[in-house]
């Protein structure tokens, strides 16, 4: 069993190789090829139903739970390890690949317990270690100053933006190496969105971020690389600055200029 994905290498790049994916008999992803570099932000953009979220959920195998969903061809490697290999423990994979969902979903318990949850799962009982990790994670998520006096209060009492940052804190408290974000700001107001984006900017030197977004400005603001999805295929994948200034394909241009979507 592989303890961490590949502890010897610092390489946490994600390589998607010739991936086909389908729900039952209907194909969702066709022949996906992506090399997501480490320590940076990669955005997935594209119209609804084009397979961005599906690919994102393939990276930490969240699709395993869906009965009819399966990969029909190809594989995904993180740091050179095929994560669909039978020797990979999915529970351990998810400790390395954290995820933040579209709708903020803190547990109905205290702020402290939300952040400590992942650590407790790992069997951490030392109060001092927990306290320190919680504080650190909340600092990283730029939430510490707002909640430090009410750590024992219910997380459900926080505002929407605070809840989403709490979910980010919860995801990074266990020190993953990859953080997947599925439209993390779609339910937030512009101020809260700006805070989350700032946060991603601050953290990207330490993590590999993959973000699904419908917001072109957001993609251009936060990401280093962008992949444009259309009808289950990656049409274009390049540096963000280049894609937004000089797209190679007409479909890409039409989408980012808002002619369809």
């Amino acid at each position, binding site marked *: 069993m592989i303890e961490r994905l590949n502890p010897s290498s610092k390489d946490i790049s994600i390589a998607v190789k010739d991936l086909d994916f389908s729900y039952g008999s209907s194909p969702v992803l066709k022949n996906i090829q992506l090399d997501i570099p480490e320590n940076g932000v990669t955005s997935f953009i594209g119209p609804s139903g084009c397979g961005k979220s599906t690919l994102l959920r393939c990276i*930490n195998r*969240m699709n395993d*739970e869906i009965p009819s969903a399966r990969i029909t061809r190809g594989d995904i490697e993180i740091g050179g390890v095929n994560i669909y290999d039978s020797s990979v423990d999915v*529970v*351990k*994979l*998810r*400790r390395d690949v*954290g*995820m933040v*969902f579209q*709708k903020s*979903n*803190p*547990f*109905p*318990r205290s702020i402290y317990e939300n952040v400590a*949850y*992942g650590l*407790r*799962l*790992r069997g951490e009982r030392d109060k001092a270690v927990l306290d320190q990790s919680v504080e650190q994670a909340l600092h990283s998520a730029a939430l510490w100053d707002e909640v430090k006096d009410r750590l024992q209060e219910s997380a459900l009492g926080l505002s929407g933006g605070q809840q989403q940052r709490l*979910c980010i804190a*919860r*995801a990074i408290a*266990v020190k993953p190496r990859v953080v997947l974000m599925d439209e993390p700001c779609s339910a937030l107001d512009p101020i809260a969105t700006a805070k989350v984006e700032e946060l991603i900017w601050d953290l990207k030197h330490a993590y590999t971020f993959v973000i699904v977004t419908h917001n072109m400005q957001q993609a251009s603001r936060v990401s280093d690389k962008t992949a444009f999805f259309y009808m289950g295929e990656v049409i274009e994948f390049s540096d963000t600055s280049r894609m937004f200034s000089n797209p190679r394909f007409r479909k890409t241009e039409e989408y980012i200029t808002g002619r369809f979507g």
Partner: protein
Amino acid sequence: MSPEENPSDLAPHRFQKRGFSYERAIKYFFASNAGLTIVILALIIIFLLKEGLGFFPGYQRELQVYRIAGLEFVDISRKNLTAHEQLTSVLNRAYYAEINGRCIKQMRRSQEASALFNAYTDQTGPTRDLVLNNSQAASSPNSEMLKNLKANYEQQKAKALASLTATPHLTQMERRDLIESVRSRAVNDTDDPLFVTTLAEEFTAAQHKQAEPLQALRSTIDSFSSAGSELSSLVSEMTESVIATKEKIQGADILEKDRKTLLAAASGAKDPVEREKLMTEARTSLADKPDVEGPIQLLLEHRPDCIKAHTALRDASTRIIGQLPSSLTQLEAARLLKAARHSWPFFIADLEKTPAAINAWKPDAPVPLTDSISSFLTGKDWVTGGEWQDFYGILPLAAGSLMISIVALVLAIPTGIGAAVYVNQFASPWEQSVVKPIIEFIQAIPSVVLGFIGILVFGTVLRDISLWDSLQWIPGFPLEERLNIFTAGCLLALMSIPTIFSLAEDAINNVPSAYAEASEALGASQVQTTFRVVIPAAFSGILAAVLLGFGRVIGETMVVLLVAGNRIKIPDFTAGLGTFFQPCHTLTGIIAQELGEVPMGSVHYRALFVVGILLFAVVLTINATAHRFVNKMKH
């Protein structure tokens, strides 16, 4: 269809012209239904309160009569007499348990042999009697009918011989001989087989032999038993006289009530002749004030005798406790002796306090209304229909209901919630589709059928199991009563499992899937997610499920009426866990059992209504609390 094509659509409907429309009619229909429900509910509550609240003044009068007539005075002494009888009985049981325990082998052998023989005769008896009766009546012994009957008897005999009861304490040889002697019995042989009588004699002989070293204990018990005779005869003498006084007062009460009815009728009568007639009738029926003073004075003259008898009994008891052995060799006997020794000091203390109570007693002390309320709520006796005195104390019934609920919930909570967690979180879709309907199907069993099964199958099986030697370490085994708190609790658990299961499963199902998803994305396994996220999030809903299960259990009537054993007595908690194997009666059961038989409007009738009100209040409180939890979960 557009308005141009059919302009009449725009015209008001003919109902609307009269300020009435279909929509309004439908609205009023449902509003009136809802209104009717509320009115009926209100009427039920008013009826309950009207019938029930009359209980307290009525009971107050009964308690007053109880005091005036001197019954209370006699009960002061009787209480100690009853305690004395109970202690005597416990000691006697200890004595026989000791003897039988010492010759347990002979006892078992004798019991098994006669059980085998009795089961055989029970099965073959009817056919045998037919043969015997007809062989006397028939003129020719070879008639066709007699032949048939004999064949039938032989057949029955073969069947009985094939299914004989087990005899673990007899040797193979003895069993074979016994069966042989049973098989070869003549049709008209009425004696028991020799082996059975021999074993019975052996057992009796063993008992006699074992009784010899226990002679000292025997005479101690006998002397304790006879120490109560003086008090006993005094009490029975006083009983007769106070009963007579009570009947006199009650008779006067009834006459007085009739007179009031006549007077009321008279004042309502319009015809002056009629009125005069009623008035005369009322005047003539004016009861003589019953003579209470005389009999009470006679009763009070017994005071010194009573006190003397108590002192004598106390002295005897203090002496006898010193003569009892400190322990006995047999487990059951030692337990009984210990129980007797334990209650002995309380018995003596009561005896010491009694003379003061006798002296302080006054026949004319007032009985306030609060006394009737407090003796209802905290009374330890529910005694009805006796010639002595009726008591309406709710504690034995409440204790029974509570004990049964405890058993039911202890069994149903883990099972119901466990099943809900499994079905919702771990079961495959196929398992879900099988398990859920099966558990919910239990609800479809009518409770009377369940009670029926409880008596015939569960109660009997449980008692048979309780006879197993390997289970004798369980307190309360072997069971004395087939129908008890535990059997009723088990069946009620079965009935409340579907309630708890369905509601708990709903609660778990209502936990947003985002919680589970977030937990899994953090690397939690399925079990971790279930126990750390899903169940805590569903907790208040699960609590509501438990409470509603409790409401179902405490309100259930049929099963407890059939299976709880219906003994109106506060369970004897000194038996420890064995308490759960005692029979009891319940709040619901008492209403179902007694309401049909009491005279309408009597105090007893009203007492049952108050029990009903109490139940209503309890169940209402439970349900309201449960709904608060459910609402809490929604927000």
